[in-house]
């Protein structure tokens, strides 16, 4: 009983944290100070609420405490300055930093959205944007984020504090981007969320548990974004893509963390309810307005997920979707997938011919994925010797242990 009460309090605080932080940050120029104040309010809630009960307006409660902490901090700051020199303008200083703060909190969803836009700001590197988003919007602790990314807590703390510093010095205004910059900024938000998802979508032994949490967190945040922007097709597309990919998680790895490719997975392990939700989302988005890359990838994932047996896969449909995606972006990885689909429809030789067109692209010549795909197609074409060579080359080039083990095993089986 106690445990579930703790868990539900934890959920409540995590849901409220970005709303309160968004509201405080909107009214206060210093994001780092706002974040510290909200942290203190959350700690106060975690100690007081279990004993005194959850207040009737928990969000308002947290907001009041956070703002009080901020005001105290500003007062202390002014007192310090007064000791150093006589500052006559302390009253106006309080008013600039903490304007009429004790009023009602405005629309919380806008604030959370603004917070998300701020954390995924183009002035931050992806690694810092990810850390800041998980911290400020996801409400994860620094230690949780550090263990998810397998770095020491001090390293992660430093990354987060640098991100806040970057925001402070670049004077990013705490407001929603205007219409002209909105699409570009939303694209960065979606990219950060997708990176978090992919970071978590690696299941191997040991730290895998933490990394699974990252996928769940990415899905939770994307659901939140989707709830705020239900009419945005790419947001819907990304959410569908995550659900349709995550649905295969249980089938994707063997007990010791070995990778199981799509065509060898036990499809009865796929999560049917996630697939149904993903398919419904993408089916609602596709007929509406402009088609984007996330929607197309979700549609491809849906075609795979809807085949209960691998031989039922509608490859001509997948080839057509990759064809559209290929027109949309100049990504060599998309061309690679197009080649695989072409091989499934027209035979391995057709795929190998398409690979010849990609191999000059400097972005993939040294990439293990090109070698791995070539090895697969050569194997299917019956060229055993060449297939072994390329499987081994791909194994040497990948930085993923499960993937290296998979490719090495493939080569070893052919070499017997």
């Amino acid at each position: 009983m106690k445990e579930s009460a703790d868990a539900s309090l934890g959920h409540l605080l995590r849901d409220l944290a970005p709303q309160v932080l968004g509201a405080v940050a909107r009214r206060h120029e210093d994001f780092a100070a706002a974040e510290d104040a909200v942290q203190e309010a959350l700690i106060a809630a975690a100690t007081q609420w279990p004993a005194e009960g959850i207040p009737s307006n928990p969000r308002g409660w947290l907001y009041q405490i956070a703002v009080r902490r901020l005001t105290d901090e500003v007062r202390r700051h002014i007192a310090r300055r007064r000791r150093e020199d006589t500052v006559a303008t302390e009253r106006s200083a309080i008013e600039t930093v903490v304007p009429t703060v004790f009023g009602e909190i405005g629309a919380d969803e806008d604030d959370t959205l603004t917070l998300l836009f701020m954390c995924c700001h183009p002035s931050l590197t992806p690694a810092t944007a990810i850390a800041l988003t998980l911290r400020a919007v996801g409400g994860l602790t620094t230690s949780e984020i550090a263990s998810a990314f397998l770095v020491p807590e001090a390293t992660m703390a430093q990354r987060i504090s640098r991100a806040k510093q970057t925001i402070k010095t670049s004077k990013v205004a705490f407001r929603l981007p205007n219409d002209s910059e909105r699409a570009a900024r939303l694209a960065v938000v979606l990219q950060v969320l997708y990176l978090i998802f992919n970071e978590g979508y690696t299941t191997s032994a040991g730290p895998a548990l933490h990394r699974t949490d990252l996928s769940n967190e990415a899905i939770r945040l994307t659901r939140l974004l989707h709830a705020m922007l239900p009419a945005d097709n790419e947001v819907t597309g990304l959410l569908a893509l995550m659900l349709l990919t995550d649905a295969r998680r249980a089938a994707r790895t063997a007990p010791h963390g070995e990778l199981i490719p799509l065509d060898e997975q036990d499809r009865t392990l796929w999560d049917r309810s996630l697939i149904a939700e993903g398919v419904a989302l993408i089916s609602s988005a596709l007929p509406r307005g402009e088609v984007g890359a996330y929607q197309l990838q979700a549609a491809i994932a849906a075609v795979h997920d809807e085949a209960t047996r691998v031989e039922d896969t509608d490859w001509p449909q997948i080839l057509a979707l990759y064809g559209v995606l290929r027109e949309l972006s100049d990504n060599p990885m998309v061309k690679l997938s197009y080649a695989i689909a072409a091989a499934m429809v027209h035979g391995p030789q057709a795929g190998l011919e398409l690979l010849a067109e990609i191999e000059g692209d400097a972005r993939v010549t040294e990439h293990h994925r090109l070698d791995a795909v070539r090895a697969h197609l050569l194997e299917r074409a019956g060229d055993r010797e060449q297939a072994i060579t390329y499987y081994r080359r791909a194994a040497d080039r990948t930085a993923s242990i499960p993937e290296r083990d998979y490719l090495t095993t493939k080569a070893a089986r052919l070499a017997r």
Partner: protein
Amino acid sequence: MRYMLMMNAPRGTGDYAVNAWSPDDLKAHIGFMFALNKELSESGELVGAEGLAAPGEAKIVRAAKNGVPVVTDGPFPEAKEFLAGYWIVDVDKPQRAYEIAAKASSAPGPGGAPLIIPIEVRQVMSAPPDM
């Protein structure tokens, strides 16, 4: 992406060559390494760094048939160089790891001249599979 930066030194006599340096040179060298680690720690890139004891102290261990360790004392004349220390850094792109390695390579030696120590840069297997 994570990289291990391995600082190799020539095997020599089994002692670190630094033992023969002047106190000022030694101080400059230690200060340089300290500043580098501080910089990496503040940039949020340092995962770990260690220096290793002199290679003359090294042992080589093999398992005997019954699993008991068989310990061989050095020196090991077959080894041309030895690992003096390493960093593990988490960086956005390989070029950044090379930059850090180049900086470590330029640590000052006798008379303050850069040592140009060879740093072996190897990616740590940890990236997510993308298949």
